[in-house]
């Protein structure tokens, strides 16, 4: 009887081994049913950070840039902003930069120099992206 049980036990073990998935693909757990698992979240290389431009004390008498991207709502939004700026700060000046290339970073396009020159002339800038 004992011999039979040993043989039977060995047979069960053999069958189980034959059906066990090979290798570690199936994320074998530890003997205590625990998994030690790796993070999927990527590392990033630190990039140089820049502060934002100093603010002006008032918009009165200032040159305010209005940047509109290619989306259809951007220019009407800037028109609405401009209208209110003129109402509240009549001596302010506005200048529209109309970006027509779809989904681009303006400073990475052929308009880079034009954009930089425009931005340099502004005391403050409002950007509208139409979304």
């Amino acid at each position, binding site marked *: 009887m004992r011999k039979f049980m040993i043989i039977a036990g060995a047979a069960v073990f053999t069958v189980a081994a034959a059906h066990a998935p*090979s*290798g*570690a*693909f*199936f*994320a*074998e*757990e530890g003997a205590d*049913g*625990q*998994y*030690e*698992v*790796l*993070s*999927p*979240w*990527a*590392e*990033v*290389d*630190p*990039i*140089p*950070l*820049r*502060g*934002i431009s*100093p*603010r*002006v*004390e*008032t*918009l009165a008498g200032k040159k*305010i840039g209005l940047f509109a991207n290619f*989306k*259809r*709502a951007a220019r*009407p*939004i800037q028109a*609405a*902003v401009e209208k*209110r700026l003129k109402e*509240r700060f009549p001596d302010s000046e506005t200048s529209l930069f109309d970006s027509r290339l*779809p*989904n681009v*970073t303006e400073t990475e396009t052929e308009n880079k120099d034009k954009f930089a020159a425009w931005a340099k002339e502004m005391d*403050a*800038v*409002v*950007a*509208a*992206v*139409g*979304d």
Partner: protein
Amino acid sequence: MLLANRGFVNDAHSAASGKGMPGVRVLGTSIACESTVAADIESGIDAVFDDIVAALTKPLTDEEKSPQIKTEKPPRIAFTGNYTEVNRFYYRKGWSDGLPITPPSPDAVAEMMQGTDLPANHVVAKIIPRMGKATIEKIAVNAVMAGALPTHMPVLVAAVEAITDAKTRFDTFEVSTGSWAPFLLINGPIRKEIHINCSSGALSPGNIANAAIGRALGLIVKNIGGARKGIEDMGTLGNPAKYTLVLGENEEESPWQPLHVDFGFSKKESTVTVFFPNRYAQTIPAQTNAQGVADSLAGMGPGSLSCLIVIPDHARILSSEGWSKKQVKDFIIKNAHSRNRRGGLLSDEDFIVVVAGGPGVWMGLLQSAGGFGNSFVTKKIEVPSNWDTLTGKYKNLVPSYVRY
């Protein structure tokens, strides 16, 4: 300062941080995205105009003046727990896609990396918007989570190279409100070696390769690129194809040369071709002769960019009546009702024709958008030196269905 629809404030902050300016002041408005309603715009600006003025005049904080670099070094081992605990931990961290994951243990990840000769720390690409480093190990972690096999690694490495190629305009499609999903078309011998389904129901669930490769890529985009749904990935309606959209061309049943050969690769090479559709449509031809099939393909209205999927039976009918693939494309260009996004007529570069699927009468269209300087991108799939051993290990991992 930046004005954006209030649902895009997080997205704007993430984008600014990714460009090295985390302090950019962002103001959310109630104005509908791409609004064409003047009253909506006027009232939306009225509601925030005082805040606009404040954003331009309120003195800067120290952090806004001189933001500090936060060097993030996530621990390699993220968690220890049982299967359920691991799944709940990953879900709560925002690292899963809602379905259970395979725990990415060090052993499982090591086995996954047998699918490439590249070292674990090799950076395949940096993925926007977070510019996360897609190392071989991180790709493998996400692949294990998705249930992929080590034999899928070569496709994933090539797919990461492909989606991050500037010509795909991934920067537009990855996080767009349009909910575009990466479509991977696999060509060459690897299709058979890793059991990519090219035939019946190829775009339906049921095959590890088609399911897990696309799922892994989705996790890679999320966890390495940092494009999280509703935070950076601003797809308005979403797209079930973001779970997976992987197809092999049915080269064995096609009368024409496969797509990758059209693109200059050898038939013996394996490739992945990528673009980002958000529309999948199917139809049947009014007539099943060659003219009827061609009319229906043109009638599906492929725009720029599109993939027309022709089933083997229809391809054979076309071929037997003398239609080459080029003639089919020329006919479509001449007769399709759609125009491309640039406003011009379709051109040969605007769409591809591939043979896939099984018995039946349906034809398919996957459609993206052109006009962004985007194009199809094809990358060669490089297999590791142990390829025969590796594929041998998994060659019998296929479903077998009982007849009832």
